């Protein structure tokens, strides 16, 4: 039922960027998690009666100067596209590989995971007008008035809500013209992007790749999704905004961490889920040429912890440290798995890790010898992916 991923040439991964309510770099996020600092903000939109959280994790909407673009360009960007571009800009500042002129821009790729870019339309003023007439059985005149509609609908609506345009802004700003991909809409998309980018670098299609994930923006449409999926009943799902990026390269980087294994699957039946979690974890471990006992840290995302038992069943150490970061910093959708990846890279670099505490506000920091880290990400309807990072022995 589950295939074996083919072994590829090593692809190295460099720590990139984190843009979230706790800050705009990995160190500040790590520190905030260790200190239990939660930068919560009042919910910025109306909610339904049973909505459980009055505060959420928001980020500021980056402006033209922070994004390094002309103010006119902002008309073509929704908040998610701005979060994506800002996260990419932070990663480009952080990682020299992308600025390396010896690598042709045609060999630098972009792989971006982002949920449905939600439009700002229908604007409230349009709804206000339509509200007056929506109860009438006949068609409201406003809906057939070109003048009215052209006034009410933003000129660039047709472009600003396309995922491809969120990519285009990043490509244009940082001259990335290699093989690419845009992935949607849930947390699993982040590792779909990472795995595809890994393949492209391993096969030589790209020499380097910027891999990013972006959260949804907190608005009434997101709240409707929460109600639909039952996420409003889960304690670790406080909405969070943000973006996160890493850089992949075929060249061994100073920290020498590689994507050593991965696996992906679709769990069509919840009855089979425990078995398939095990199969996919086993496949990723085999792909990385390690066993469950070799894993030094596990960071699942959006799995509700269902895969933790599967990893133990495969022989993981009883003392295996586990961090479900969404318990402490909110649920940031497709940004989340890459935020975890950046935390893992930081941990591998610093030889320390974070584990959840009972209060789910702060994470406990411990020193420890880390070599192999496992990460997972899940979508709401059975999508499940595993990635293994391994640090070279220097």
């Amino acid at each position, binding site marked *: 039922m589950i295939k074996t991923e083919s072994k590829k040439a090593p692809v190295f991964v460099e720590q990139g960027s984190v843009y979230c309510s706790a800050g705009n770099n990995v160190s500040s996020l790590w520190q905030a998690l260790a200190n239990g600092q939660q930068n919560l903000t009042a919910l910025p939109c109306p909610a339904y009666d049973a909505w459980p959280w009055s505060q959420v994790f928001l980020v500021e909407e980056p402006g033209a100067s922070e994004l390094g673009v002309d103010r006119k360009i902002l008309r073509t960007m929704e908040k998610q596209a701005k979060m994506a571009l800002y996260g990419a800009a932070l990663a480009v500042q952080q990682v020299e590989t992308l600025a390396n002129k010896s690598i042709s821009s045609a060999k630098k790729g972009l792989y971006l995971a982002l949920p449905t870019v939600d439009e700002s339309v229908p604007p409230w003023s349009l709804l206000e007008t339509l509200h007056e007439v929506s109860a009438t059985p006949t068609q409201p005149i406003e*809906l057939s008035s070109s003048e009215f509609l052209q006034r009410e609908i933003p000129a660039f609506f047709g*472009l600003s809500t396309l995922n491809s*345009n969120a990519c285009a802004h990043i490509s244009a700003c940082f001259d990335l013209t290699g*093989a690419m991909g*845009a992935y949607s809409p849930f947390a699993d998309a982040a590792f779909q992007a990472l795995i595809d980018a890994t393949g492209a670098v391993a096969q030589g299609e790209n020499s380097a790749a910027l891999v990013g994930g972006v959260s949804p923006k907190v608005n009434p449409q997101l709240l409707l999704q929460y109600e639909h999926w039952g996420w409003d009943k889960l304690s670790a799902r406080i909405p969070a905004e943000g973006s996160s990026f890493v850089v992949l390269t075929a060249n061994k980087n100073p920290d020498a961490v590689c994507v050593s294994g991965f696996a992906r699957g*679709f769990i*069509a039946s919840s009855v089979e889920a425990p078995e398939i979690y095990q199969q996919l974890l086993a496949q990723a471990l085999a792909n990385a040429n390690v066993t469950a006992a070799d894993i030094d840290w596990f960071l699942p995302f959006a799995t509700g912890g269902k895969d933790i038992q599967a990893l133990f069943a495969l022989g993981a150490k009883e003392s295996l440290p586990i961090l479900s970061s969404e318990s402490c910093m909110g649920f940031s959708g497709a940004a989340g798995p890459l935020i975890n990846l950046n935390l893992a890279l930081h941990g591998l670099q610093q030889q320390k890790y974070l584990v959840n505490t009972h209060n789910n506000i702060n994470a406990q920091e411990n020193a420890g010898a880390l070599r192999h880290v496992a990460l997972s990400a899940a979508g709401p309807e059975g999508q499940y992916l595993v990635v293994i990072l391994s640090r070279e022995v220097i």
Partner: protein
Amino acid sequence: MANKVVVTGIGLICGQAMSANELFERISQCQSSVRKNEKLAAYGVTNSACSFIDEQVLAALDVQCREQGLPQLSAPALLAIYAAAQAIENADIDVKSIERKGLFLACNKQSLEAEHLLGLAKHFDPTTGKVDLDMFMEMQRHEKQSYFHKRQDMAALVLAERYEFDDVVMTPGDACAAGGIAVGTGYRYIAQGELDVALVGATEAMCNYMPMLSFSILGALAPQSGEHPASISCPFDKARSGFVMGDGSAFLMLESEQHAQARGAKILGYVSGFAKQTESWRITSSPKDGSDYARCMSDAIADAGLSINDIDHINAHGTSTEQNDSCESAAIKKLFGERTVSIPVTSNKSAIGHSLAASGAIEAALSIISLQQQLLLPTLNFCEGDEDTAGINVVQQATPSKIKHILSNSFGFGGENSVLILSAVAE
């Protein structure tokens, strides 16, 4: 060594055609699917001509899906389920029994329709400036107005469950390049030995209120003052002034050649090359000199292990916008040089509209039939090029021709480009 990737099944629904062969036949006879959409016209959409799928057809597909126990689905999902089932039947394959298989289904986000907008407005309180989400959610449970119909992965997840795709399930959302990217990504997985079988395709249903309005306001849709709907889109013609929208879905069943041969499948054609790239330019246009398009085309040809002299036909992106057709013409001239005048070029979009994500998959399906029948399809409404498109050998009527390799372009808003190379079965 890379596996050869074959096409063993095709499924399609587009405009008024319910299969790929029917659509091919219609276009070869210069029949357009572009009609005035009276419902959109009544809503004040001035560019209401499009290649839409009738509401009765969608209603019948909805009934079929409900009878099969599926939940209420969006229009793109209904089209995808129909086209995917047809491709699977055409390939005569038991998909569930295949172990190493993937699903690659391109679709862009859907927007609110006029009725949905009115439904939302009912629950907007102008005095507080808030939407009553409780009432809105209650309404969604009873009416066909769910916010979740906007989800672009709805069709992929339904198909994944139905056919037990338990490995790669991917939903590319790369605007107009997404269909080509879905086909190409599936091709690449098989070529590299990671999958034996891939169901690849795309679906889109944008002939509705908000997309039509937004693209109209953007100036991308062709103005339609008094012209017959079927003659509005005219790719590469000097009179081109924008695209017309289209609905549709198409799927190809891809297999490794070894897998297809082992089960005795009929091979319809090959996917032999692919490239996908981003530009570093503007989000509303591409470099006028065609350099980025040419680079993508060149890389796809190289991926197929071919040279430009091996390409016999180009299935162009050919949207009928001033920008695209000028850039694409420049790219063809830049890449093919003196050969440009001898390479026949077809755009299908004047006959079936531009179905954004679906267009790349639909055009790949039509290209495979061109290879099978050794027949070039005409570009409807092309009469005469302008300064930019002059010299492009635009096919004006169905033309028998010896074709081994077709290059099929899909270029997306924002500068995401994909190119496929499709090849004939050796005689």
